[in-house]
């Protein structure tokens, strides 16, 4: 995948892989952690937990609604259930069950959606979650996490389990560039400043953080110093970091592998409007479904690229 190459990032594992490894490790430490999966454990990587802890692993079959309900009942008894499936099926198929069984009673269920975004590639739009962040953000009291790389995904998995309350963790299928080292910490609700800069800010999450770093390098070549914030927590949003970015850099580009409506861009724009209005640009999927193709082709085809971030950033800096 052609992301982060301009700043020399090395390709790492997929965030789903890192989640699966971290979950297995956490399982060794915390006997309350259990998994409910729906026949996709070899895709979500919960199978690594399941192989080591078969008694704490429940495959309820291809039935996401039931999956979430079972997780709800387990959480009501003090278990920490990880309810995992493809993000598209978990959020879209079982949304009412999440609403009634997780969000409304505010139970300690850890929703994990894999294969999020269009970068899953060839399987096509039926398998792509492009609306999952919007859906998750529309659930009162649910924390929404979108890690950028394998190290962030491991840290986010740990943060999610340590947090007492409902969460949604979004992970992806393809290998992605390594942005951090293994010491990175994910503090829920606290953005990470990946790059300092005072001329414009790029707020990104997921694999778009790597694209944002490429864009920042190119902008630096034009004499524009871009701040890059990894907004790994979409909810609760780090409003202080957003307000500071607006105030100190005067413009914000939001980049995400998600639909334009209701995702990180919407959430950041609401905060900007309220706290410190400034010029904004958005690099995301603009009110459309994608199609089959390689993940890399699709990111290019639908404009989820460093090029587009550079375009938006320069437009903003020039006052356009």
């Amino acid at each position, binding site marked *: 995948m052609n992301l982060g190459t301009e700043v020399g990032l090395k390709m790492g594992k997929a965030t789903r892989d890192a989640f699966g490894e971290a979950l297995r490790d956490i399982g060794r430490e915390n006997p309350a952690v259990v998994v409910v999966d729906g026949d996709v454990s070899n895709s979500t990587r919960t199978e690594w937990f399941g192989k080591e802890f078969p008694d704490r692993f429940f495959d309820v079959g291809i039935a996401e609604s039931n*999956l979430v309900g*079972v997780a709800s*009942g*387990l959480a*009501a008894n003090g278990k920490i259930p990880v309810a995992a499936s493809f993000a598209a099926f978990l959020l879209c198929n079982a949304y*009412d069950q999440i609403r*009634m069984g997780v969000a409304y009673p505010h139970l300690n269920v850890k929703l994990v959606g894999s294969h999020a975004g269009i970068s899953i590639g060839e399987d096509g739009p039926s398998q792509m979650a492009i609306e999952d962040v919007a859906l998750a953000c529309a659930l009162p009291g649910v924390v929404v996490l979108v890690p950028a790389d394998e190290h962030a995904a491991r840290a986010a998995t740990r943060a999610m389990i340590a947090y007492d309350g409902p969460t949604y963790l979004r992970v992806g299928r393809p290998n992605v560039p390594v942005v951090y080292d293994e010491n990175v910490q994910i503090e829920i609700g606290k953005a990470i400043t990946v790059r300092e800069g005072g001329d414009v800010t790029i707020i990104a999450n997921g694999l778009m953080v790597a694209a944002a770093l490429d864009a920042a390098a190119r902008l630096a070549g034009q004499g524009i110093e871009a701040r890059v914030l990894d907004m790994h927590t979409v909810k609760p949003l780090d409003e202080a970091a957003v307000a500071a970015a607006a105030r100190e850099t005067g413009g914000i580009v939001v980049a995400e592998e998600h639909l334009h409506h209701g995702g990180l861009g919407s959430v950041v724009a609401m905060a900007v409007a309220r706290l410190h209005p400034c010029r904004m640009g958005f690099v995301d999927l603009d009110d459309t479904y994608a199609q089959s193709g390689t993940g890399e082709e699709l990111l290019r085809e639908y404009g989820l690229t460093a090029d587009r971030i550079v375009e938006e950033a320069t437009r903003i800096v020039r006052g356009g």
Partner: protein
Amino acid sequence: MGDQHASAQAQPATANLDELRDLARRLRREVLIMTTEAGSGHPSSSFSAVEILTQLYFGGILRYNPQQPHWPDRDRFILSKGHAAPILYAVLAEAGYFPKDELKTLRKLGSPLEGHPNMRRLPGVEASTGSLGQGLSIGLGHALAARLDGRDYQVYVMLGDGEIEEGQVWEAAMAAANQKVGNLIAIVDNNRYQQTSAVSKVTDPALYDDKWAAFGWKVLEIDGHDLEQVRDALIAARDEKSGPVVIIAHTIKGKGLKIFEEDYTWHGRALPKDKLAEALEELG
């Protein structure tokens, strides 16, 4: 936890059928009074479930302690047909979870007695329900938690016969049979009517036993208003340890009040205030 050894006998219990019959009569009155006071609610859907809940909570079947609503070894009762909340509230108040006085706050701002059960606000409510089809899955989660924790509690889930049109019920039925949970008991309040029609216009209730059996459940079929049959079925279901059991309880929607029994369109409607006195007289 301090309440690990709480007594299973803390709840009022009687095997005396006359006393239970009298209690059922009083619970119907409570349901009618609170829904009429609220001006909305589902009294007729509550009435069909009265004998089942009376026997479950006050016939010595369900193990619970109102002073310790989260006692880990308590049996769980989940009202999946959440619109029958009024009878659940009447039962919980009678059991001592909260003062009976609160029943008159049903559906009012600030009251934990919401239109449909909210587990976060009312002690004794095991699941937030009201969006149909979800309680059996949640019950399965409770049943699996018992296995993980080595506890022997039972999980009872009451479903409506209209409700089991929801596909999720059958997802849960399949998974529960596969997991061979011997502590999960579904009770179908087979009152034959859903909101806009007879259930038989939409699905074929005659096939219910075959369906549950085909999904791997042991099926018991009873008259849901006969307290003896209800007791015997609940005990038989509790004692069955090899897998999940469903009790199909044939009931009458609005049972006990002629105006309800004769007209299914009372679903979701409270009795008007000017009809209350006469109705209470009929209930006795």
